[in-house]
């Protein structure tokens, strides 16, 4: 990803807009009894488009803003989301991606990872309450929502950041159709 002031401003707008949309809309609606959590999917998309470093940095700031707005101890969200962004970016850097299903599947898998990560952070900080088995259903449903939402987020964010994407530039110059992730 080629970072210019314009692209940086877009990244900030997407991060802020994404966090506010999550807190004001998705966290307050229920589908099949569960609120969708699309922030891990957003961070996965940053990692897929920009690589591990961009993914980790964006993940850190998404977590930071989330913790600030929820007035919870800072650092927990940053830690989880930077790991999510880094893993998504590392996947993109190590593997050739040809299928359109890769982005949503990664969103699904890493949402599962993020939910378990939040659980681990809570355990680390002290957790003294019984856990309902329904939590497994909730986590799995959140991952399914991330699969559905991940593709739309990927298409939207890629469109917003298109001028900064290295693959897109070289493809436009060579006149070939984009094959990566097929969107």
């Amino acid at each position, binding site marked *: 990803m080629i970072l210019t002031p314009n692209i940086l401003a877009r990244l900030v707008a997407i991060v*802020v807009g994404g966090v*506010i*949309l*999550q*807190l*004001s*809309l*998705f*966290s*307050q*609606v*229920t*589908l*099949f*009894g569960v*609120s969708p*959590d699309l*922030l891990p999917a957003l961070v996965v998309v940053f990692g897929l488009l920009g690589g*591990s*470093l961009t993914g*980790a*940095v964006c993940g*850190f700031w998404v*977590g*930071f*803003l*989330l*913790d*600030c*707005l*929820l*007035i*919870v*101890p*800072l*650092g*927990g969200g*940053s*830690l989880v989301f*930077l790991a999510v962004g*880094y893993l998504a970016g590392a996947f993109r850097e190590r593997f050739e991606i040809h299928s359109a299903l890769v982005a949503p599947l990664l969103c699904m898998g890493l949402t599962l990872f993020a*939910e378990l990560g*939040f*659980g681990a*952070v*809570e355990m680390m*900080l002290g*957790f*003294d*309450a*019984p*856990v*309902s*088995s*329904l*939590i*497994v259903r*909730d*986590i799995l449903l*959140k991952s399914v929502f991330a699969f559905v939402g991940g593709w739309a987020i990927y298409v939207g964010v890629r469109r917003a950041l298109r001028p900064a994407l290295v693959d897109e530039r070289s493809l436009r110059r060579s006149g070939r159709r984009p094959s990566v992730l097929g969107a």
Partner: protein
Amino acid sequence: MYRKQVRRRRAVLALLIVGSFALLTVTYGQGSNGMQRGVSTVFSPIQSVADRALKPARDLINWFDETFDAKGRNARLHSELETTRKQAVGAQAALAENEQLHKLLKLDEGGAIPGGYTLVTGRVIARSPTVWFADVTIDVGSGDGVEVKDPVVNGDGLVGRVSAVTGGTARVTLIADHESAVAAKIVPGGDQGVMKPSVGNPDDLILEFLSSEKRVGKGQSVVTSGWRGQVVASGYPPNLPIGEVVEASLLEQEAQSQVHIRPFADLRDLDVVQVLTGGSRG
């Protein structure tokens, strides 16, 4: 060149990880800090506008969800209706008795909210997205008189307690959060215990440490006990409605001294809440 890039990348990554742990260490246990107050001051007006603007979208999505849910509920409600009809007859008699007692004791007409508290009304503007903690952010804060540990209710009953405040917002830790523990009693009967959540299922609260000698029955109501000792006191005023007993098996009562409660307030769908400011806190 490549090595330099790799080294720089590793350095940034290490910095972020160390930064996260440092933030966690420094801010853990604090209600709110200067950084959060600053960010909250900037973003709370945006959140309020977004919350109002997105309400129709939220209502639409929730309507779809409720329609799916309604089919299943219909059958259950039919059987509940029959039971409720029988109870209504008994309740009418109890109501008459209650009115007499009210007159005798000269209690307030409102009853549930104890005297000495001022009610501050707020709206939920954000909700934590993970399943591991149950927090909401409301659009009233220290500027409106809200303080940490203030109880929060809605029209149905107890919702939670303020756990952090900024100038214009406050974090409410719901009674379904793993950090929550409420001293509660069963009415009628007066058997007391501590109510804790079952994390991941906000419709299931567990009332522990009950006296195993008294039998608790399904359908009995649970209210805050609001006990007060010489040194410590419950953080909640007495008699705030919490929920009703939905599962009270003999085995669980004898072996674990606990029963299951469904909260009156729908903790997944909170909109307008009231903070009980002033009064005495534990």
